[in-house]
Each structure stands twice: as structure tokens, then as C-alpha cells.
């Protein structure tokens, strides 16, 4: 009834090609962004900001990056954690070694070095495909774990190998309180998500999708596989690198290589698979599912236990959390193998007919 595009006429190509052609979508997304910038800071407390929303925003950004590579270009990568680590440590080194380095430049330099490393480890993608490529990108993970643990220079020769940053500022404004951190991450995320969305709609994004769907056919119609694949690695690693730098700088404040272990790579890959491959929107769903759901379960289960007067031990909660989480993953993948984003679009289709489905 409300969600219909009847009467919305497109009179120019620009109007027809915008990201959200339906006015209701446009307003909804604008309202959501406005709510995230204005409403959320007024409503939520420090715990939600620091423990849930900031990690969610940063990992959403990383998932957007991984989705470009895995979802759009079809190159399965298990090196995302490594590219996050490169971003974090490169940004750290630029930040502490060069006096007066602005935070944003440091973050972008993290992205830049992650791009270089990502392209280097993307070279095998020209020869190996599919699961074999996933194994090849694992090399990036192990190499980076090794490098940041062993080579003292990267960690400024800290005896424990753990590094930390403080005194973050953007254009003279401090990024110190949870609220400031949240707004900073949100701003970065909005900018990058918009860029990514436009990139995948452009010529280069179509090249990636052509390569994903059938690389021989893509080559026949004149798409250079090397250019397409390496550019996907570059863009993806850049975004993932910036996310890694944010994870270290803004979320943890002090970190060690274990923060970017192979678990993180798997986590990012699962976000993309569960959220929806080849969908920017899906990255957000996937990140929400993986980041927020375990924490909600962890708090929900004892509360449910309380209702029935049962005290559940800490270990039991933790085990139950894993079981429920695993069951939900299986359930969602059976209900909708194309991810939460597909579920969302089906929902939108149904909504167009509602309430008169005839």
C-alpha cells in the first residue's frame, strides 16, 4: 500500500540510474543515516556504543571490503585478517614515526599499504581459482602473523610486541569519548559504503561481476582478467586495511597480532556469506549477525533463565551461546542460501503487494 512506485516517473537518465530509484527507499535510507548520526547518540548508553556499535561499524566496513573481492569478483580470500593487520600496523607506524601525522592520513596510509600487500598476494589469483585461491590467500594470513610477531621494527621494538596509540584528533577535534569514536567510525563507514556502492555499479564493478560469473566469457568480450582481478584485490584490501586501522586505533586502542588472527579472516568471510554475496547491504546484515548476535545471546540466555528461576553457570551460557549461534547459522542458510540480503529483498517484494496479494 505504502511501498509502491506508482506515479514516480523518471524523466532523465540520472534519475533512472540513481542508487535507490524508489522514493520510499531513498527516504528510508536517509532517515536511517540521519537517525544513526543524530538519534543514536541521544538514545544509547556508553556500553552500547563501545561494546556493540563501534565494533559493528568497523567490521561492517571490513565486510564491505571483503564483499567486493568475494561477492562481486568471486575471488575467495582467507587473507582478510592479514590485510586488516597490515592496515593497523602500517597506520601505527606512520602515526608514531612521523611527528604531527594527522589521523586520517595515517588511516589512509594503512589502507594504501594494505593495498600493496593485497595486490601482491592477489597475483596467484591469475592462475588459481576457487578453493585453491582461498588456500593461497591463507599464505598472506600466516605471513603477516609471522611478520608482526617477529619483526621488531613493525611494533616499534616494543618488548611485548603489543602497540598502542592515544591522543587521536581529526581536524583539531578529539576522537576520545565513545560518542566521538562512534561518529568518526560512522562518518568513515558512510563515505566508504557510498564509494563502494558506486564502484560496483560502475564499469569496473561490472567487469568484476563478469569475471565472477564466467571468467572465460568475460575475457572473450574484452575484459582483462588481470586488471579486473587485481583491481578487486586492491580496492578490497584498501577498505579492509582502513577497517583494520580503525579496529586498532579506535576500538582497541592497544593491540597485538592476535587481534587479526586467522579467526578474524574466517569471521569476515562468514559475514559475507551469511549477509549475502554481492550485496553491499548484505555486508551490514552479516556484520550485525556475527558481531551482535553472540553478545545478545550471551545476555539473553541468563535473562531467560531468570524468568524460569534457573541460574545458569558462566560456562553453560558460553556453550549455549555457541550452540544457538551455530544453529541459527544453519537455519538461515537453509531458509535462504543467498544470505540475509536476499531475505531482505524478498521482504521488499512482498511488501509491494501487501496487503492485496492478488
Amino acid at each position, binding site marked *: 500500500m505504502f511501498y509502491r512506485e506508482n506515479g514516480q516517473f523518471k524523466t532523465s537518465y540520472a534519475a533512472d540510474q540513481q542508487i535507490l530509484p524508489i522514493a520510499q527507499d531513498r527516504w528510508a535510507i536517509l532517515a536511517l543515516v540521519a537517525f544513526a548520526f543524530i538519534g543514536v547518540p541521544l538514545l544509547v548508553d556508553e*556500553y552500547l556504543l563501545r561494546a556493540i556499535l563501534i565494533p559493528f561499524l568497523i567490521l561492517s566496513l571490513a565486510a564491505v571490503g571483503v564483499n567486493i573481492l568475494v561477492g562481486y569478483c568471486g575471488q575467495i580470500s582467507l587473507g582478510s585478517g592479514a590485510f586488516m593487520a597490515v592496515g593497523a600496523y602500517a597506520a601505527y607506524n606512520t602515526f608514531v614515526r612521523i611527528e604531527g601525522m594527522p589521523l586520517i592520513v595515517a588511516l589512509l596510509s594503512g589502507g594504501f599499504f594494505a593495498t600493496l600487500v593485497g595486490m601482491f598476494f592477489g597475483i596467484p589469483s591469475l592462475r588459481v581459482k576457487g578453493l585453491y585461491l582461498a588456500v593461497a590467500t591463507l599464505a598472506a594470513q600466516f605471513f603477516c602473523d609471522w611478520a608482526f610477531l617477529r619483526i621488531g621494527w613493525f611494533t616499534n621494538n616494543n*618488548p611485548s610486541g603489543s602497540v598502542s596509540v592515544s*591522543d587521536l584528533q581529526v581536524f583539531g577535534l578529539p576522537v576520545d569519548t565513545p560518542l566521538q569514536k562512534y561518529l568518526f567510525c560512522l562518518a568513515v563507514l558512510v563515505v566508504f559504503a557510498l564509494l563502494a556502492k558506486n564502484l560496483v555499479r560502475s564499469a569496473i564493478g561490472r567487469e568484476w561481476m563478469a569475471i565472477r560469473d564466467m571468467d572465460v566469457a568475460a575475457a572473450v568480450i574484452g575484459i582483462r582478467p588481470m586488471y579486473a582481478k587485481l583491481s578487486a584485490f586492491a580496492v578490497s584490501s584498501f577498505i579492509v586495511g582502513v577497517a583494520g586501522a580503525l579496529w586498532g586505533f579506535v576500538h582497541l586502542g592497544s*593491540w*597485538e597480532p592476535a587481534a587479526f588472527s586467522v579467526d578474524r579472516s574466517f569471521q569476515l568471510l562468514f559475514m559475507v556469506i551469511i549477509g549475502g554475496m554481492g550485496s553491499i547491504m548484505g555486508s551490514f546484515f552479516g556484520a550485525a549477525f556475527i558481531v551482535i548476535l553472540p*553478545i545478545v545471546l550471551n545476555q539473553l540466555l541468563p535473562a531467560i533463565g531468570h524468568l524460569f528461576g534457573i541460574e545458569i553457570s558462566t560456562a553453560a551460557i558460553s556453550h549455549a551461546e555457541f550452540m544457538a549461534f551455530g544453529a541459527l547459522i544453519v537455519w538461515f542458510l537453509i531458509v535462504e542460501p543467498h544470505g540475509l540480503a536476499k531475505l531482505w529483498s524478498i521482504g521488499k517484494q512482498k511488501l509491494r503487494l501487501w496487503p492485496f496479494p492478488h
Partner: protein
Amino acid sequence: MKLRQLALAASFVAAAASGALTAPAAFAQAKEQFFPVLVYRTGAYAPNGVPWANGFVDYIKLTNARGGINGVKLSFEECETGYATDRGVECYERLKGKNGGATMFQPLSTGITFALTEKAPADKIPLITAGYGRSESQDGGVFKWNFPLAGTYWVAGDIIIQDIAKKLGGAANLKGKHIALIYHDSPFGKEAIPILQERAAMHGYKLSLLPVTHPGVEQKSTWLQIRRDRPDYVVNWGWGVMNSTLIKEAQATGYPREKIYGVWWAGAEPDVKDIGEGAKGYNAITMQHGAEPNAAFVKEIMDKVHAKGQGTGPKDEVGQVLYVRGAMSAMLAVEGVRRAQERFGKGKVMNGEQVRWGLENLDLTQAKLDALGFKGVMRPISTSCQDHMGAAWGRIHTWDGKKWQFTSDWYQADEQIIKPMVKAAADKYAAEKKLQRRSAADCQS
């Protein structure tokens, strides 16, 4: 149809979640000192994490059974970190404001300690890292909110070398010897390196560094190297499954267990009991206490907590090494609160800032410790503005195949060596963070 079910399920989950998130406010009670407990009862380190958590919680229950701290009862809540830094940070955020505010935090992981060291000063909550954490945080002039009470890893490393020197008949005999450090490849394991290197430069022994990656079950290549080089001593800086794996590998390699020294995280029952006789002779440093089944406070826990069916965990583990460690960690926090009450008002609930003062002015004399039931378990601890550690004593205990036995007298870590190292590391931290050392006036506050 399917969608409606989904929407219903989602809204139910959302409603329940918001209920769960707001519920704690309703439970909040006044007049209770809130102790958050970060634990890991699951994961690769659970065998060691569980007894620690049981000891910690039982001591809190014992304190309540004793009538609280001058009448103030304690409340507590556990949060499972799984030894993961991001979950630890989440737990910290979840618990820090609950039930009138957290008294202190004990992160129980070097990684989480590092992350919380950045956050605690802003929230004004002290961090107690009894025997672990970052060694330079002993310097209270820079690390105002960190309290590595009763020892750090540098103290532990120093005492291990002292004991080796004693067995060799003097520090002079260390010259030309070969010591291998097998360490957990994380900030925790690396904490040992500076002190062993410092001592190596002093005494002229050769130190080789052999990292083992998390969780530590893959040590074949490490032991191949040991078999080849035959070092005179092996120092084990491990945790969790890494320790038992290491002893089994030593057994397989034929390396004498008498020549292996573990850090105090590598010297408890879960590490050796499955190997039993095979681990006989394995040494470990204790930061003061060992297994103390006969200590007065352990008996009191048995009488006042376990006898009433309120005990945490199995009865036969009460008094084991890590159980005592947990209880001692809780005791230090409780005594910090008691000390704070002496200044800010007896019988009142203390906030984080006041507890910080209490921890900084802790003066646990032997008489006080004996009264608490820690006779023969611990030595006096007295902290100050500059020294947040309070005591640098340790002993060596050895597994005799059935239980841990003390095999050395008390050692004190060499201040002459550790102090300059702490100062240099703390100054480096302060310079990186652009912090000023605390002034004398700040010490009074």
C-alpha cells in the same frame, strides 16, 4: 507466511534483548560493593581458568560469610572472555557500570590487560594484575591505575635465574651455560624476554628464544631444536594446553624434567596431573603461594562456603595452586577496599578512585595476613605511589608425581636489575603517550 513468522521471531528476539539489556538496572542494590569477574571457563585455557575463577568467587563468598568488608557485602558477576581480547573489552564495558560501578577489574590475560590499560584511567577503575600483566606497570608514577600486586613476569624470570644459579653453585657458574626459553607467542610470553636477556648480559649465559604459537599444541619443531642443541636448562613460559604438551614432548625427547622451569601460569595441577609420574621433577616458580590445602583460609572456605553447599566447583580442587591464586587475587582486591574504607569511611561502598587509593596504600603486614588465614602462604605486601607491586618474593615448587612441593627457600628479585628496566620501559611508555610522571601532590590524593 514464512516472512511473518520471521518477523514475529525477530521482534520477539528484539523485545527480549532490550529487556535483557535494561534488566540489570532493576537488580542494582545499594550498599553492595560490586566485583566484576572476568573469567574463561571455556576454550583452550579453560583447564587453568576454571580453578582460578572458582577460587576468586569462593573467596568473595567467604568474605560475605565473614560479614563483608566492615559490614559492606560484596556482589559479583562473571563474564566469559574466552581469553579473547575483544570479548574481554566487551565484558569490561558490560560490567563497569553495573550495580553501582565496578570496584576494580582483574583481566586475567595480558592481551586484555593491554587493552584495558588504555581504557581504565578514563573510567577511573583500577586494574589489578596480580603477578601478570605488563611488567613496567609496577611504576606507579606512570601507571596510575595498574596494580601488578605481589610480582610481575620480570620478577618471576629473575627468580628462576637465581634458582638456576644456586643449583649450579653460584652465579659465576652460569657463564657459558645455555638456557632455552620456550614461550607462548603473545605479549604474555614475550614479557619474559627482557629480563632473561638482561641477566644473560650480566652472567654470560647463552639464551635461545623458541616461540610456540597459540594454543601451543604444536611443538615438534621446537623440541627438535632442543634435541639438537641440548640446552642446560629450559624455561617454559606457557599457558593452558601448551604446558602439558611441553612436558610430554620433554618426556618423548628424553629431556630431564628437573631442568625445566615453568612460570607460575605453568605450575599448577592441570598442567601435570595427567602426566603424573612423567612430570616428576618439573619445577615452576610460584609468586609466593603454591598448592595450599592446609592453609587456614582454605579450611574456612570449606567450613563456611562449601559445607553449606554454596561452593563453586568441585570440592577436591579447593586449595590447588590456581584456586589459591584466584582466592589470593580476590583477597588483594578486598583488602584494597578495606584500606580505602579506613580513609574514606568505614562501612561505605567505595568507588573506583577510592579503591585505587586503597590499593596504592596497601599495607598487608604478616599479622594481618595471618588473621585472614594466609599464614605461611604469603609474605607482607606494602605498596606506595611509586611502587605498585608491593613485594617481589617467590619460591620454586616441584612436582613429585602426585603433588606440588616447595623445593626452595624464599627468593627476592634483584631490585638493582629490575628497577632500571621498569623505569626505562615506563618512561618509554610515557613518552609515546605524552604522559607526565605523577607529581608529589598527585601522590597524596
